[in-house]
């Protein structure tokens, strides 16, 4: 060791410890920053004894310390798992949201629901049978029937409104995903530039990884590591982001089912996970299936009642009138054959006298039938309950799994302030020691320069 090199050793130590302290400070500052990965400085001793040849001896003691880089504590495999878990979570929670909406719409079991309106409707027929000439009973049935059809109409309209809302949400989600994927591509480019220039790209990578997790929860993407710290993002095997280029998606709502396509090739992009996957399922499967089931209930009600009603005669003796009109749940109405005139309601069998009530009794008894519209409706509601419950259970399990992965990621990347305090104390002490070392070298030199050779002065 040269006489003056001691000062340089002390200087390198001061630099390195100060850098360490800075990194620690940065870690503490970002303890609550979403997506931030804690950083560590990588230190290496300078010079020092090289592996000597046989019998060679060295007196070289090394030249201090140098910072070789800053590393980002992050587990790439956990990132991949987290992306998958977030995708599944998005899918299930979006589906759950819609099922909850549908359940709230039907509001069963309660006293304000389609089932209750149906019960009231069937009961009304018995009141007519009890007194076919009573205009109050007839008017009551007419208003109950109107209530029933309007309740069913509203439910059908709401279901299709949910679907329209879902398509609108899909279209904004698609735009959001496009923005994210092009941001990821830009960040990838910046990271490649920084990495190849030997700069610390940790913060850029954190930003990018956060976007990757967000895009995964939207469309259920898979992530693979690329060159120079870049990542590639795939949708069912097709590249969404490849290096610095991003492929755009677009929503095609002109067809049924609604599909998401690649904007470039116009080919369908298969998305079965994430918010988008969940919404596609809701828009293409869940909501249409409940609409269809409600249509089936409305048609069953119309056909069952009409089949009996047309064989009966109103108070005026005219038979062959339909009771319900309409082609499905959305447009079911009390028939124009009734025309708002309660006397046109057929309670009597033809030829059995004006005040016969056997037709009304027949329709009233549908209330207890196991093949009526009411029982078809019950089956639908139970199906809805089972679907919602199952999905909720899957969501609960998936949420646990996602929390676990997030916990593991945080365990690898998160900032522990206690640890940082320890590092801070460590670097501070090292800094103090290096200063002391410098002082000591300085004093040695002072002795050598100012006090040596002064004998007898």
């Amino acid at each position, binding site marked *: 060791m040269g006489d003056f090199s001691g000062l340089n050793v002390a200087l390198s130590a001061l630099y390195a410890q100060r850098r360490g302290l800075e990194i620690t400070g940065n870690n503490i500052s970002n303890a609550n920053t979403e997506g931030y990965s804690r950083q560590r400085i990588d230190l290496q001793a300078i010079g020092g004894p090289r592996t000597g040849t046989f019998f060679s001896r060295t007196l070289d003691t090394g030249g201090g310390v140098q910072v070789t880089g800053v590393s980002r504590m992050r587990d790439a495999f956990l990132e991949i798992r987290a992306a998958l878990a977030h995708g599944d979570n998005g899918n299930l929670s979006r589906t759950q949201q819609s099922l909850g909406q549908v359940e709230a719409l039907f509001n069963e079991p309660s006293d304000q629901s389609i089932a209750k309106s149906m019960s009231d409707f069937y009961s009304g027929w018995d009141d007519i049978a009890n007194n076919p000439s009573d205009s109050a009973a007839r008017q009551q049935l007419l208003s109950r029937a109107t209530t029933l059809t309007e309740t069913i109409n509203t439910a059908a309209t709401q279901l299709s409104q949910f679907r329209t809302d879902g398509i609108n949400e899909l279209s904004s989600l698609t735009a959001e995903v496009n923005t994210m994927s092009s941001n990821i591509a830009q960040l990838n480019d910046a990271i490649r530039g920084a990495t190849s220039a030997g700069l610390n790209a940790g913060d850029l990578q954190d930003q990018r990884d956060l976007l990757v997790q967000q895009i995964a929860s939207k469309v259920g993407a898979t992530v693979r590591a690329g060159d120079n710290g870049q990542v590639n993002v795939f949708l069912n095997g097709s590249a969404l982001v490849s290096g610095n280029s991003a492929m755009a998606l677009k929503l095609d709502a002109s067809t049924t089912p609604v599909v998401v396509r690649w904007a470039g090739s116009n080919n369908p992009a298969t998305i079965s996970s994430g918010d988008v996957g969940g919404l596609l399922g809701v828009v293409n499967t869940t909501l249409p299936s409940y609409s269809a089931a409600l249509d089936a209930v409305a048609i069953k009600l119309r056909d069952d009642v009409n089949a009996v009603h047309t064989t009966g005669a109103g108070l005026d003796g005219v038979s062959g009138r339909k009771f319900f009109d309409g082609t499905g749940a959305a447009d079911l109405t009390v028939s124009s054959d009734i025309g708002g005139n309660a006397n046109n309601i057929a309670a009597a069998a033809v030829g059995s006298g004006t*005040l016969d009530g056997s037709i009304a009794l027949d329709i009233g008894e549908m*209330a*207890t039938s196991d093949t009526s519209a009411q029982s078809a409706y*019950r089956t639908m509601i139970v199906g809805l309950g089972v679907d919602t419950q199952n999905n909720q259970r899957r969501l609960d399990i998936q949420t646990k799994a996602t929390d676990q992965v997030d916990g593991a990621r945080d365990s690898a990347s*998160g900032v522990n302030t206690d640890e940082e305090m320890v590092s801070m104390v460590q670097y501070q002490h090292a800094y103090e020691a290096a200063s002391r070392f410098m002082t000591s070298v300085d004093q040695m030199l002072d002795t050598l320069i100012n006090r040596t050779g002064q004998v007898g002065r």
Partner: protein
Amino acid sequence: MVSSDFRVTQHSLAQRTTTNMQTALQRLQEIQDQISSNKSITKASDDPVGAATALRLRSDVDRNAQITRNIDDATSWLNSADDTLNAVVTQVQRAKDLAIQAQNGTLSQTEQDAIATELDSIRQTMIGLGNTQYAGRSIFAGTANTAAYDSSGNFLGTNNAVERSIAPGTRVQINVTGGDVFGPAGADIFANMASLATAVRAGNSASIDAAVTALDGRTTIVQSRLAQIGATTRRVDTMKDRNDTGAITLKQDLSSVEDLDLPKAMMEMQLRQVAYQAALQTTAKVIQPSLLDFLK
């Protein structure tokens, strides 16, 4: 759950405790919702099988209430018919008493005319009874929307059955028609009364006997219809008892499916409250200290 080499950070601790507190609070809210609504099923997914049963029972309860109305209506109708036919029998008895008086050979023409006039008025009373209405409807007119008889005693109604639904899938005929109980047109009870009055006016003993015999025959039929109405009333009454019991059972069943077991729910709420408070307390203890508190 957490292995020994699992690093714990303040952030993950905060996240985890927030999640735990949130879960505990959610569970507390769930049970409070149930208690305040007193329902264990508020939506189908709470218990799909229970919801199916509840929907079914709700519709059964509605049906049951309607059947109660049907039965009450049937009972009133039957009572009205019963009262009317009993009154008819009384009137026939009076007519027969008058006929016996008329058989006394010493009556003058004036006295015979007086008896005949009284018989005519009894006949009018009977026609009035034949037109008895219940809730604005002639009970002996079948399904016709008219009075059963005109003032001369001609039948205007039909002989169709009037039925009431008194149990799911069970209907009962509640009417007896004019033609059935009072006899076919031209040979009905009113015609019998008319010929009795004519015979009394003429003082024709043989014709009086013939008319009384015909009246007796008709009275037997009226009484058998009274017995039939009695039997139907009993049947309807039985059904009413059964339906009333059914109403109670259905409501109990519905309550046991839909309603909350309150003591159990209160107990559960206590437990969840304790869990929530415990979460709050541990959070308060755990997140406060850090190494900072101990470094100088």
